[in-house]
């Protein structure tokens, strides 16, 4: 349906159903769409990177030091889900705003002389909010892959002369790569298309492709173009994901 629609044209109130590639040409040549595509990719790749980077130590801690409280730790991680996503994103406005919690606190500490403005209503705000919102989704797959590592392999690596750091890079990280790849995909794919977060905390500098798709569908009343943008972003995401998976093929083969 979406795919068909993307080859049609909107003639004011009616759909012109003659086949055309104009929508795609527009989607890939108009600077505004290029900008939005690249910004979306930049934001979601950065979010993916930081989410995985932050989630890994947490998953590591729960898996190796959780003892018999692993279930409790995992339960605590789900606590943010008790409030709605929308509410959590709104809270970031309160935290990051001009007179927000963070700025007031830093001013009070006299670490800054005037409120920071680069943290709200731009890409950075979107990155911070998304990283927080998606962290639990990254922790779980990494946790599972860490749990699956046979503990005797860790002893074997120590026995064969590895210190803790070497052990991490030679055994733990390679064996938990399937979890890292899984977590990356789980974060990357949905965040590219997120539109609530940029709308709430992104201002105009933080808008992403999904916001444009929404505008085209509703206000601009150009469903075919919106469809073309959607299909394009789908293809781009799929392409990047496949490249990423192929890149990590070595780690993803079944042990």
């Amino acid at each position, binding site marked *: 349906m979406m795919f068909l629609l993307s080859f049609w044209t909107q003639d004011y109130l009616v759909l012109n159903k003659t086949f055309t590639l104009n929508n795609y040409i527009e989607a890939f040549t108009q600077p505004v769409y290029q900008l939005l595509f690249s910004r979306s990719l930049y934001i979601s790749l950065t979010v993916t990177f930081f989410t995985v980077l932050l989630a890994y130590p947490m998953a590591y801690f729960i898996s190796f030091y959780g003892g018999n409280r692993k279930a409790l730790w995992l339960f605590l991680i789900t606590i943010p889900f008790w409030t709605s996503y929308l509410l959590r994103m709104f809270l970031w406005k309160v935290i990051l705003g001009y007179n927000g919690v963070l700025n007031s606190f830093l001013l009070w500490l006299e670490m800054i002389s005037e409120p920071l403005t680069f943290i709200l209503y731009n890409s950075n705000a979107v990155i911070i909010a998304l990283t927080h919102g998606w962290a639990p989704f990254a922790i779980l797959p990494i946790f599972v892959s860490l749990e699956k590592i046979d503990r005797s392999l860790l002893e074997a*690596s120590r026995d064969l002369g590895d210190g803790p750091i070497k052990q991490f890079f030679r055994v733990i990280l390679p064996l938990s790569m399937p979890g890292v790849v899984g977590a990356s995909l789980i974060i990357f794919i949905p965040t590219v298309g997120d539109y609530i977060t940029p709308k709430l905390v992104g201002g105009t500098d933080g808008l992403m492709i999904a916001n444009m798709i929404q505008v085209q569908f509703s206000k601009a009343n150009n469903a075919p173009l919106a469809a073309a943008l959607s299909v394009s972003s789908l293809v781009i995401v799929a392409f990047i994901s496949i490249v990423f998976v192929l890149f990590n093929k070595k780690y993803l083969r079944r042990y």
Partner: protein
Amino acid sequence: MVKLVQVENVFKSFGDVNAVNGVSLDIEEGQFYSLLGPSGCGKTTLLRLIAGFEKPTSGQVFIDNTSMEGIEPNLRPTNMVFQNYAIFPHLNVEENVAYGLRNKRENRNKQNKLVDEALELVGLSGLNKRSANALSGGQKQRVALARALILKPKVLLLDEPLSALDKKLREQMQSELRHLQRAVGITFILVTHDQYEALTMSDRVAVMFDGKVAQEASPRDLYELPTSQKVASFIGEMTFIEGEIIGENKNLKVQSEIFGQINIDKSRVFGQSSKKIILGIRPEKITIVPKTSRSKNLVSGKIIDVSYFGETTNYKVSCGTIETLTISSQNSVGQPSYSVGKEIQLKADLDNIIAFSA
């Protein structure tokens, strides 16, 4: 001989459980040493204490006259073959074997040569690039051995390395391990719950029960001269008979059940002297003799159970006050086999009786 590994009064407790309860051992250089005991006796914990994976609650381990206190496993002159082999699944055979070498500052060509030598030593030449997942149990075992031996440790620790293999392969690996140990001259410490494995492979065996060493001896002494009833019944089978000391000169004069009055050499009596003693006799030291034969010390009994083992047949016999006396008899042509319920006559080789104080 030089004492290579010394365990000095080591205790290790996990919560309220005392896994190792005051163990002292001296293990000589170049020995094939076994820690034998039922599961839960603390033998694996003791091995892990030597390897450094556990820290003793009290006591010390010395290797080569150096205290191992506070020394991490990666810095100890020991290497281990793990029970489940712990082969790195993300690496191939060659990478697994070279794993520890890569921590050393030797050039790659030399390392690769060592890897090839190690693989040849364990009979895996040419499998360098094979994936770890494509290996059979026996091959994993060999990779684990090569991986540990390539580092030329002072002590090689083996944690029930053969328990996951089938019987035939296990026996083959037992003799290979034995040959390997002689060839490389490294001290091996083997943990096993298999009595025959310990007896056939080792120079010395320590039998452990409940975190303590019950007896430390050569395999022959362990079988022929066990110092306690517990060790005697753990290593092979033994029938116990009650007796009472009635006199003493150069031998001990004992009035026993079924065998009547017998003399026991004092070197075969263990434990504090008391009037009541327990006599023990191995199944193969009793033979079934024809009903017609007349000699001293014949005992009659009735067969209550027969188990056929191929090379031998084991009979459980009830005679007099003894409910079950176990007899093992060699199977050969001309040797009659008996069935349950049959009345038979027994002759015991009384020189082989040993005595424990009750």
